[in-house]
């Protein structure tokens, strides 16, 4: 039964050595090892957390970007529409102005033409009257140069008068 009876020396040495080992390893091994492991765990955790945060930030940034892009696109559309409208307006106005000017020019021209026409007509009338008088004078002079012609003419007048 030697196997089951603990020897005093081994009991003593085991106690001393093991207690010493617990303290020495606790100070020199477990403390640095466990604190390093804890540090690493923490750093991994923070890395994971920050990665998650970055992911969320990226997503929000992306949605922000999209919003901005949409807004920009809308603004561009509005600007384009406005520009087109303005251009149209200008075009129309220019057209209208030009028409107006042209109309005015035409009217003025017409008026001038009318005036000139009237003037010309007046001249023509005056000249025709002059011509007529001259012709009539000449004719009279020629026709009444004889007595017979004169008589005939007087007769003609008288006939007319009778008829009236």
């Amino acid at each position: 039964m030697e196997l089951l009876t603990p020897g005093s020396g081994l009991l003593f040495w085991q106690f001393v050595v093991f207690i010493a080992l617990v303290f020495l390893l606790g100070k020199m091994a477990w403390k640095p090892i466990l604190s390093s492991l804890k540090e690493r765990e923490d750093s991994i955790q923070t890395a994971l957390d920050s990665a998650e945060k970055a992911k969320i930030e990226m997503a929000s940034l992306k949605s922000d970007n999209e919003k901005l892009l949409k807004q920009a696109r809308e603004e561009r559309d509005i600007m384009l529409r406005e520009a087109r409208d303005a251009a149209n307006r200008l075009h129309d106005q220019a057209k209208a102005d030009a028409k107006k000017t042209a109309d005015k020019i035409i009217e003025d021209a017409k008026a001038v033409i009318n005036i000139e026409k009237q003037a010309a007509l007046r001249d023509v009338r005056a000249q025709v009257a002059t011509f007529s008088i001259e012709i009539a004078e000449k004719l009279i002079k020629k026709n009444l140069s004889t007595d017979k012609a004169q008589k005939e003419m007087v007769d003609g007048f008288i006939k007319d008068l009778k008829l009236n």
Partner: protein
Amino acid sequence: MTVKTYPKKPFSSTKSAFLGLFITLLSGTFSASFAQEEALHDTTKVEIGKKEHTEEFNISEVIIEHVMDNHVWHFFEGHYGTLFLPVIVQTPERGLEIFSSRNFFDERHELIEYNGYKIEHNRIYLGENPVLDLSITKNVAMLFINAALLLLMLTSVARSYKKNAGKAPKGLQSFIEPIVLFVKNEIVKPNVGPKYQKFLPYLLTLFFFILFGNLLGLLPGSANLTGNIAVTLVLALITFVITNFNGNKAYWMHILWTPGVPLLLRIIILPVELIGIFTKPFSLTIRLFAAITAGHIVLLSLVGLTFVFHSWYVGVGSSIFVVFISLIELLVAGIQAYVFTLFSSLYIGMAIADHGHDHDH
């Protein structure tokens, strides 16, 4: 058990044959070297004791001698293969005395008396009185080797944590780290509870001490440290002391005046609970001691079969068995370290747990 004597069967003629067989078959494995040592051991003993042919080769004595503690450390047989360890004895008559255990052996390596001291059953007596023996025995030397190995290894790992701060572990560090994490996260944390940090250094040391003690014990020529009842007893007692010194009110209430139980039952339960305090370290002591010693005995018995039967075939067969049993022993080394640490954690956890919910069961 009878007084140790040397095996006397003469089979030195087969010595070289056995050696050759074992070396060829199993060189490189623990068991081969074990067997080889065994062979040397026995044959040399035979040469020494040739004059007493009448005594039988006693395998059980050889085995028991191997798993027991001793004042000398045999690597090879005879005076030259033996490491004589220091003997430290304390007696009321002579005080503290330190001398080499060489003095207990004569030139034929037979036990003799020295200066009034004598060794019987590995115990030292002065005359007829047992002495306080604090000798550096084979197991104490093994204990120093184990402790030194753990210190060197784990402090070097701790240094590499400082050196490799913030980097992935490498080398020895990556071997130790998973074990540390396993003990911390799988054994200590779930069983001790939220206040586990305080007990972690002790439980980690316990695990590594037992694990490496077990593994070193499997090496050829080494001592059966964790299979010695003194070693397991001290470990169990330390767990016992830690458990009961840290036990909170609820723990002691549970033992002394179990709540939620009728008065009559409480009186019956009280002695059961009191015995329970002591059965815990007792079971820890016996479990580790028995598991490791039994493993060694099985290995040695299988090796010994060859020498009992004097047959090549048995040698080959038992050697194959020894290889497999050695592999199982490697497994057992880990399992026993795990179990001892697990139960220590459990006992400590039970003593410090908040038992608030337990009052209504």
